[in-house]
């Protein structure tokens, strides 16, 4: 492969990923509304298009047509920068998550990942930490007390939960002995899913992922009843849409990360024993990965409409007194597994 082929193939991959991610985001907004309606015995959006399927596009156009209001007290450059940071982080993270096994296409061997970097997980952790800046800047630059409270809460919360998230990931890294997402997925062959081998780490990572994406029960940064809209109180029009998109993209990415790290990524246990053809196996594996992401997104929404918000002190004590020690226990558990059973 010469340099031009690599560039063209990468561009095609990026295009596919971005379109897929945008569609996922659009329809997770739709399904969020539908699921909330089902939980509350309502119907949900059903007027725009067949079964309301065009609702997300109607929402986006509505936001585009609205006036973009910037408060007088706002720090204008940062006020504009904040949603851009949030969006950039949300979309850049997906570059390292493998969709499926390497495929042969038109004589090229293609990895189904935009960037097959050997420190992929580190890259994801670094970028998600950057995501805090988007929200904190938004809260601080708006010049409003509600936004400021949201931003402060978010920085405290995300930094606290990043610790237990990092330690849970360390367990996975010990198991696979690599930071590359593809290697991590390949290490979980058969039923050796990390969710089964290290259930404590799975739970701590899941809870931390909820906190990192600011989803209920950890949505203190937005907390509508207390803080109006939290960090995005002073945002309107397309800047608000940026935060909205970023929130749902983060949810999709958290789901993809959970699937990659703990649920075997694109692997379907013992699919090679069925003796299916190469193409069918690959297609099934990609479908399996997308199914896992979909199921996790559903889980995120299901939790949101079931569980009330934590109080701030409960959130902090859960983060530092429960999740952090549990993730350390998980690390010891994984080390013991490797020492004793030599997995």
């Amino acid at each position, binding site marked *: 492969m010469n340099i031009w082929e690599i560039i063209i193939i990468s561009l095609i991959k990026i295009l596919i990923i971005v379109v897929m991610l945008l569609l996922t985001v659009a329809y997770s907004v739709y399904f969020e509304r539908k*699921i909330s*309606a*089902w*939980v*509350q*015995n*309502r*119907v949900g959006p059903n007027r725009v298009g067949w079964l309301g399927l065009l609702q997300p596009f109607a929402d986006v156009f509505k936001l585009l047509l609205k006036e973009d209001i910037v408060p007088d007290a706002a720090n204008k450059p940062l006020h504009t920068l904040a949603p851009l940071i949030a969006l950039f982080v949300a979309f850049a993270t997906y570059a390292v998550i493998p969709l499926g096994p390497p495929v042969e296409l038109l004589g090229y061997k293609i990895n189904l990942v935009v960037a097959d970097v050997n420190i992929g997980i580190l890259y994801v952790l670094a970028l998600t930490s950057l995501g805090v800046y988007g929200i904190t800047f938004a809260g601080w630059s708006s010049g409003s007390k509600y936004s400021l409270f949201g931003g402060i809460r978010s920085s405290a919360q995300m930094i606290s939960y990043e610790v237990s998230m990092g330690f849970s990931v360390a367990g996975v890294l010990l198991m696979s002995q690599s930071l590359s997402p593809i290697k991590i997925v390949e290490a979980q062959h058969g039923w050796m899913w990390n969710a089964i081998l290290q259930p404590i780490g799975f739970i701590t990572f899941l809870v931390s992922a909820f906190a990192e994406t600011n989803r209920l029960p950890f949505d203190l940064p937005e907390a509508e009843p207390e803080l109006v809209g939290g960090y995005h109180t002073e945002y309107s029009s397309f800047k608000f849409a940026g935060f909205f998109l970023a929130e749902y993209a983060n949810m999709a990415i958290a789901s993809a990360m959970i699937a990659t790290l703990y649920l075997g990524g694109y692997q379907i246990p013992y699919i090679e024993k069925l003796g299916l053809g190469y193409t069918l196996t690959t297609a099934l594996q990609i479908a399996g990965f997308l199914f896992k992401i979909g199921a996790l997104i559903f889980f995120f929404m*299901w*939790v949101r*409409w*079931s*569980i009330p918000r934590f109080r701030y002190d409960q959130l902090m004590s859960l983060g530092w007194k429960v999740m952090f020690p549990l993730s350390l226990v998980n690390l010891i558990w994984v080390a013991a597994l490797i020492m004793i059973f030599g997995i």
Partner: protein
Amino acid sequence: MSIQKREKNLNFFEKLYIPEIMKGMALTLKSMFRPNVTLQYPEARFEPSSSYRGRPVLVQDNNGVERCVACGLCARVCPALAIEVQASETELEKERYPVKFEINMLRCIFCGFCEEVCPEEAIVMSKDYELVFKKRDDAIFGKDKLLVPVENLKERIEFLRAFK
């Protein structure tokens, strides 16, 4: 302000949150499959029972004349002062009739006192709940809008006879 003591502290399993979370999640999952209660309004409409107090109307008998004898009791009892009646004489058996009978629907509070106090069963509450006006003047309903044939009000009249 007194400090309330807890009846008992949470035990270990309750502190784990997990059993309670499971219960909550099971509940929402169950209610996802329950039939929903939404009425798709403009297409499907709410059909009130005969105990419903909608827009007050005047009963028009089969001979085309209103039952009202313009005694003014409804106007007297109306707590929102929404009713205005002007009486006059007629050759008919009832001797009096309302020349002008107006209900200001912006003032009406749908209490049903007019219906309760009426000696002639001449004003009753209908099932009509869609009241939209474009001007304030449109909200004052005269005899043209208030008169409703007795057949359309049978259910309400029977309900009143049984329970009033």
